[in-house]
């Protein structure tokens, strides 16, 4: 690798090393989890650190394309690109991974021997997610997508013997691979249409569009459509969202946090990379369609969340709605990426925090979290009650909470792009959002009936929830530092 420095792929390498180390030590140390637990934590933080280094390198202008072994002159398409997008994705994935690990610690503790496998899988999953964002090559994005998805299929079904866990795993697997196959077919068709697999580099899609205007864009459009299908499925935007509620409910609560957050971060980063980075000349084709999908997601997400009785399903449907709001940011094109990043990173922390609380209250491997079990939570443990309330307020888009800043900036960007009707649908669905979020909150503070089982969250779970709640409030009241960072997190 003469001309490729180690930094651009540092994230994946650290994660892989960490995972293998965890497995190795897990085998040797066996039962004592204490031994390899810190390794996983260090790995996540190290990769986040690598992200920071990448960020600094990019901001010093030494970002750019990195090729593998061959000599420069005949190198055509780069495999790795280190730009604001991938660096920021690394930081966020690293931190969210770390917090999710803390959050899922109760689950890991309860898995006994298999816990090292669980942690290794999470490490590799995060690596796969980052791979989706760091490469301009569409096939490699597919590979990253598959890496992450496969590990999440396993995580979903990790609780052996539980009917719901298996059901969610199989559903996630079948539908996931179907969507990935569609995505891949999209890549193939795009390859046919543009003669290139990579967005940047010599024979790249960008160069292709700078020199030629396709007279018969049929196949290109079919390719784009199919790639959209794959990514819409991943970020669970309606009407491709139907897997989300069943999988979130079936999967063990501890693991779902990372699954929900990671997939959204990587999904939207890939969307930004491919469609805003690559197919920028087809903007006036895909933007209106993304706007329509955004609207459908908002409406479907909020209305169905309204009728849910299980908190995990409610969070799943609200995830669909949040994808709608994020897509509204995408509608703004390059200008929409900073709000999208702000929104998705704060949402990631919130969703991890929320699912950690669910795992604390309803048991780490629980596959059902009826909202009634949260009634009177403030009485049973005021701390958990207030933290869940804060996260609920954050998610509902109340001002001075992170959700609000992200959402309103998304609306502003969508408004600028001329999609005011989408903004109106967005604000009205937010109101429906208030309804179901506040129903949870009113449950928390209502004088619940006799259910006074004591809740004692483990130190790490409590730490994870506090971090996410603090992030929700902090970035709500003082959003500027994150906003300045996010402004540079753009693809080349």
């Amino acid at each position, binding site marked *: 690798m003469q001309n490729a420095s180690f930094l651009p792929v540092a994230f994946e390498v650290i994660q892989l090393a960490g995972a293998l180390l965890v497995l190795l030590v897990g085998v040797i140390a066996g039962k004592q989890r204490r031994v390899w637990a810190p390794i996983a934590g260090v790995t996540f933080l190290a990769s986040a650190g690598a992200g920071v280094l990448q960020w600094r390198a990019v901001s010093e202008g030494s970002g750019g394309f990195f090729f593998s072994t061959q000599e420069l002159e005949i190198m055509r*398409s780069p495999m790795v690109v280190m730009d604001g997008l991938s660096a920021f994705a690394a930081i966020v994935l690293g931190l969210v991974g770390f917090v999710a690990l803390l959050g899922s610690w109760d689950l890991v503790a309860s898995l006994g021997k298999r816990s090292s496998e669980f942690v290794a899988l999470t490490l590799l999953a995060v690596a796969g997610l980052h791979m989706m964002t760091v490469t301009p090559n569409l*096939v490699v994005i*597919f*590979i990253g997508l*598959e890496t992450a998805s*496969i590990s999440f*299929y*396993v995580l979903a*079904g990790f609780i*052996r*013997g*539980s*009917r*719901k866990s*298996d*059901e*969610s*795993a*199989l*559903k996630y*697997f*079948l539908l996931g*691979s*179907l969507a990935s*196959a569609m995505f*891949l*077919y999209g*890549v*193939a*068709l795009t*390859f*046919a249409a543009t*003669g*290139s*697999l990579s967005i940047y580099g010599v*024979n790249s899609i960008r160069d292709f569009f700078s020199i030629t205007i396709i007279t018969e864009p049929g196949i290109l459009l079919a390719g784009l459509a199919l790639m959209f299908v794959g990514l819409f499925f991943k970020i669970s935007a309606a009407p491709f969202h139907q897997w989300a*509620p*069943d999988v979130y*409910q*079936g999967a063990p609560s501890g693991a779902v946090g990372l699954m929900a957050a990671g997939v959204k971060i990587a999904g939207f980063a890939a969307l930004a990379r491919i469609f805003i980075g690559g197919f920028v000349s087809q903007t006036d084709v895909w933007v209106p369609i993304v706007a329509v999908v955004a609207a459908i997601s908002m409406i479907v997400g909020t209305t169905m969340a309204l*009728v*849910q009785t299980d908190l995990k*399903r409610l969070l799943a449907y609200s995830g669909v709605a949040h994808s709608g709001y994020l897509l509204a940011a995408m509608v703004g094109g390059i200008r929409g990426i900073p709000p999208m990043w702000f929104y998705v990173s704060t949402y990631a922390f919130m969703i991890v925090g929320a699912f950690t609380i669910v795992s604390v209250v309803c048991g780490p491997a629980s596959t059902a979290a009826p909202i009634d079990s949260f009634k009177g939570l403030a009485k049973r443990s005021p701390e958990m009650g207030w933290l869940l309330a804060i996260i609920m307020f954050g998610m509902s888009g109340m001002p001075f909470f992170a959700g609000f800043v992200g959402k309103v900036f998304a609306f502003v960007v969508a408004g600028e792009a001329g999609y005011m009707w989408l903004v109106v649908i967005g604000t009205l669905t937010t109101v429906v959002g208030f309804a179901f979020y506040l129903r949870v909150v009113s449950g928390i503070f209502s004088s619940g009936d006799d259910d006074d089982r004591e809740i004692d969250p483990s130190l790490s779970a409590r730490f994870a929830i506090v971090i996410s709640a603090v992030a929700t409030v902090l970035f709500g009241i003082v959003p500027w530092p994150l906003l300045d960072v996010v402004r540079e997190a753009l693809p080349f």
Partner: protein
Amino acid sequence: MSLTVTWFLLLGAALFSIGVAGVLIRRNALVMFMSIELMLNAVTLTFVAVSKDLGLIEGQVAAVFVMVVAAAEVTIGLAIIVAVFRTRSSANVDELAEMKG
């Protein structure tokens, strides 16, 4: 008439569609999974056809990598199906409907 790349691509599309049909029709998880493998094969065919037509080797490299990914997918898929089979003693997908609404 001479053999053009369009034929291959059309065959690919046909196989892909049959794969999709397979996923929808069959109730046995295994056969559904096989249909998905068929779809991936169709895509590989498309990749190779286009790479031949444009003379770009990347297509074939992509095909190879796709096969590797498909292999990994198969192992995991079968593992899940076996796990499901163990708890429900049947791989019938329609019984997997406990979570809905």
